[in-house]
């Protein structure tokens, strides 16, 4: 194997390159990225970067050591197809990159509100998105966030601290119901009102009002909320349309085994675009978690190069965090619909706490903590051992 092409130049793509060199691949590496920017860290885009407390330089993922990786970067160009049974990547401009193997790390993109949008309506996924939104979050601006998921909640939190008037609109009766369940979703949802943002549940976006620029949002319950800025935070979808016809199995992402192997030999998928089998849940999950994008590539690279790879046991436990209104929310494991919640320490009604998710056999399968990082870390490891 002489030439490996990584499609995607964000965290999972960079982690792939670092793993290739760490696992002694000495051949050529090409990285294709659709954004102009070198790899940068996305989590701060809704938090510190949006708040203006860290710079673009601060969120860069590459450092001086990465020069030694010897990578050929092709930035500002999306891949348009995977050809010749995975042995060629065709770019937007029609050029072909012949390769011996491909690692797909194309990530996901923000789901858009269907139809045209007036000015002042944003989604947040990329640095360019964050630059545009940041310039509009001025003190006194009226912000309406559509969707009280993690991204929406973080933007609301950052905007409230910047002095914006914030309304958050959630179609479900409780925010974060799918990842956290109704009980704990409600606990997290209460953070909005406690910090001066208004949460409206059980109603959705009916219409964006405004000629050239948004002036209000009309809700499905008939109310109208005045708005200078709107953020649509209704989830993400994997960037896999370009793989149609490649022979890969596409089903909410690229289907892979535990190591990231697809149905085509020497084509692997990692990070947000991969719908991978997970030992932890004994099923397939597509994870949009930063930690997964950081850690999954080393296993995929080992599978590709035929190397041994062993990660710490707790890396198999899905993990994400969210920073909202000065609180650190952390979750590890996986919540299924039949889980019950048991508060282990602290008090969800008054502040910091740690809660376990128990499955039908009352085994802990997930852990949620707000501002309890230390016992959370211990539980994350216990979850790995209990498997």
């Amino acid at each position, binding site marked *: 194997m002489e030439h490996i092409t990584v499609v995607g130049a964000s965290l999972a793509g960079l982690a792939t390159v*670092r793993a290739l060199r760490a696992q002694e691949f000495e051949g050529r590496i090409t990285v294709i990225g659709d954004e102009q920017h070198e790899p940068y860290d996305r989590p701060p885009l809704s938090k510190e970067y949006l708040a203006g407390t860290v710079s673009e330089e601060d969120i860069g993922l590459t450092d001086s050591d990465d020069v030694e990786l010897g990578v050929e970067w092709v930035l500002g160009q999306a891949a348009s197809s995977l050809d010749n049974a995975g042995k060629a990547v065709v770019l937007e401009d029609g050029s072909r990159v012949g390769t011996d193997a491909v690692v797909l790390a194309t990530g996901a993109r923000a789901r858009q509100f269907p139809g045209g949008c007036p000015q002042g309506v944003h989604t947040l996924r990329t640095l360019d998105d964050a630059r545009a939104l940041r310039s509009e979050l001025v003190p006194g601006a009226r912000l309406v966030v559509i969707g009280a998921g993690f991204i929406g909640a973080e933007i609301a939190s950052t905007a409230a601290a910047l002095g914006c008037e914030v309304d958050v609109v959630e179609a479900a009766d409780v925010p974060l119901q799918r990842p956290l369940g109704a009980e704990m979703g409600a606990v997290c949802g209460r953070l909005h009102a406690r910090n001066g943002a208004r949460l409206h549940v059980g109603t959705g976006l009916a219409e964006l009002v405004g000629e050239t620029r948004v002036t209000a949002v009309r809700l499905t319950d008939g109310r109208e909320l005045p708005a200078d800025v709107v953020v649509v935070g209704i989830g993400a979808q994997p960037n896999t349309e370009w793989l149609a016809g490649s022979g890969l199995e596409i089903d909410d992402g690229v289907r892979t085994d535990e190591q990231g192997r697809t149905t085509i030999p020497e084509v692997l998928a990692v990070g947000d675009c991969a719908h991978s089998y997970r030992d932890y849940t004994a099923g397939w999950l597509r994870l949009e978690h930063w930690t997964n994008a*950081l850690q999954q590539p080393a296993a995929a690279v080992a599978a590709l190069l035929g190397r041994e790879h062993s990660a710490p046991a707790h890396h198999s436990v899905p993990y994400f965090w969210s920073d909202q209104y000065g609180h*650190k929310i952390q979750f590890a494991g996986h919540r299924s619909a039949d889980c019950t919640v048991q508060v282990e320490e602290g008090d969800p009604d008054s502040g910091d706490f740690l809660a376990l998710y128990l499955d039908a056999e009352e085994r802990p399968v997930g852990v949620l903590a707000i501002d309890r990082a*230390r016992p959370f870390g211990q539980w994350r490891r216990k979850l790995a051992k209990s498997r």
Partner: protein
Amino acid sequence: MHYSFLYEQQGPLMILVGELAGLPPGESVRVQGEVAIAVFNVDGELYAIDDTCSHQDASLSDGWLEGCAVECPLHAACFDLRTGQPSGPPAKKPVRTHAVSIEDGLIYVHESTRVTVGGAVVEEVG
């Protein structure tokens, strides 16, 4: 264990951490110096480093001890307690290390002072 305070004296700031008996092996504690400092007991050896992760805002004293390294509780950056160096991503920058001493069963941290010119750190004195 939590009666830390500062001694102003010549040279580095000296911070009383507490009784050695209050920090058994495997445990850590955060004390306030000029910045917050995390103190760890690794099998009887004491180490002190800056408490705030060099990657993003997180308290390393809440982290997971693995040998002579601590893993940040938020984003899993690992730091060598002896050198302050990160072992890999996501941290790129080291954290400062601080000398620790024990006198009469009490733990003291000697905070590394920074010599600054015009706000920029030009030299660090351990």
